[in-house]
């Protein structure tokens, strides 16, 4: 009986230690949250290590996915062939697999050509990159790309596709970089409506796209208007397409109207992107820039 009581006491004291440690760590997490919200470089530096560790697995899974889809397409195409034609089936399967992978390479080639054409037409030199991962929690709308500081990609650079802006680099390691998409709730882009030159801040609104904030009710905006970057935030070059006005409402209280914007680029599904702009630490117009 005494032994059992002693065991229970031990368990209670062990549980007390766990709870005590948990409370201490909870306080640490609150302090870290507060500190990192004021000093985003903390998260950026830490994410470099995590990004480098996870990126190879992400690329491997991507390759495995391509292989699986090629194998699946082979299987589907051969399901009706009789068993006597086994050898023929195998040759056909190989051919189908090659065709599938060539078709994939062809599509990738076309996308990269379009990226190059966009780069020369828009007059923005940049680094082409592939998206190799996204935010694992699903709460932050972000992407991981396979180019980092060794390729000239750095924090504060804009990420675009020929269809429009995707987001900006928020952390960079030598071989990878993390991109915060324009649809994330904490993302903001200085924007103007192309036809009326009305200025506002394009803020992310999650799955529903983006919202153009701080547009007064008397501003002349209509559905379908093109929203482009103003260039004033020193992140995105001027004139890049952000999206089109998808909904308007002036009925709410306050000075501003509610303007929903549908991003032109499919930000969640972009595969090849172009990283453009000047890294923050090289921008002489930013205090402290060009000093690193």
């Amino acid at each position: 009986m005494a032994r059992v009581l002693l065991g229970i006491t031990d368990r209670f004291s062990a549980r007390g230690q766990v709870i005590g440690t948990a409370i201490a760590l909870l306080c640490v997490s609150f302090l870290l949250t507060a500190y990192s919200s004021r000093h985003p470089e903390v998260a950026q530096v830490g994410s470099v290590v995590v990004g480098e560790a996870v990126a190879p697995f992400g690329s491997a899974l991507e390759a495995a996915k391509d292989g699986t889809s090629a194998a699946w397409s082979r299987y589907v195409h051969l399901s009706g062939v009789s068993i006597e034609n086994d050898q023929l089936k195998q040759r056909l399967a190989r051919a189908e697999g090659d065709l599938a992978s060539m078709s994939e390479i062809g599509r990738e080639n076309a996308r990269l050509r379009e990226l190059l054409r966009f780069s020369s037409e828009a007059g923005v030199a940049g680094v082409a990159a592939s998206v190799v991962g996204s935010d694992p929690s699903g709460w932050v709308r972000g992407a991981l790309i396979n180019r980092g500081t060794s390729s000239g990609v750095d924090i504060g650079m804009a990420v675009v596709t020929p269809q429009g802006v995707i987001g900006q680099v928020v952390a960079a390691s030598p071989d990878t970089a993390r991109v915060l998409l324009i649809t994330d709730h904490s993302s903001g882009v200085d924007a103007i409506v192309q036809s009326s030159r009305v200025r506002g801040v394009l803020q992310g609104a999650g799955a529903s796209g983006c919202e153009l904030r701080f547009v007064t009710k008397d501003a002349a905006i209509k559905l379908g208007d093109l929203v482009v970057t103003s260039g004033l935030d020193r992140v995105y070059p001027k004139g890049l397409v952000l999206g089109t006005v998808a909904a308007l409402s002036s009925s709410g209280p306050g000075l501003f109207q509610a303007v929903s914007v549908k991003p032109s680029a499919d930000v969640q599904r972009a595969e090849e992107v172009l990283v453009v702009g000047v890294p923050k630490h090289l921008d002489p117009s930013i205090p402290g820039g060009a000093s690193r």
Partner: protein
Amino acid sequence: MSTPRFLIFGFVALVLQGALSQLGLPVVVLPQLMLLVVIGAAFSGSTVPGVISAFLLGIVLDLSSAVLVGPWAGAFVTVYAGLALVSQRLFLESGLVAAFVALVAAIVAGTFFALLSPHSDLAALEHVVQIFGQAAVTAALAPWLVAVVAKPGQRRMATSVRNSSSLSAA
């Protein structure tokens, strides 16, 4: 569960979670695999290294977003500590219990994250749906994944200790 085992499972869960997200799975049905690892570890017996590992896994998940450090760490510690408080009153061998615990834990963790993070807004229906959707999918996977993560020997031991405590009390 040993700390290295816990951290390895956590890292695998992070990679798988990232892969599911990359496959284009809607965020509403994205399971919180790392949370299931934390639940599995807490089911195996709550220890001080365990709660520290839960904290570290949360930090890693935070860092994988590169924006804010702390919300997921706090959420995982809360879930682990909560389970440490109630695990002796639960029939850990039951899959239904694992599913229910995962449902509650995912709602708690999601709400905790949403309250602290600037990326979410609890007033937005989209985020409330996301919390409950992810919790439901996480709960559906819990009976299998928690069983894989939790060390069977330790789970049995925890149950037998609970039973002997009940007998002594009787």
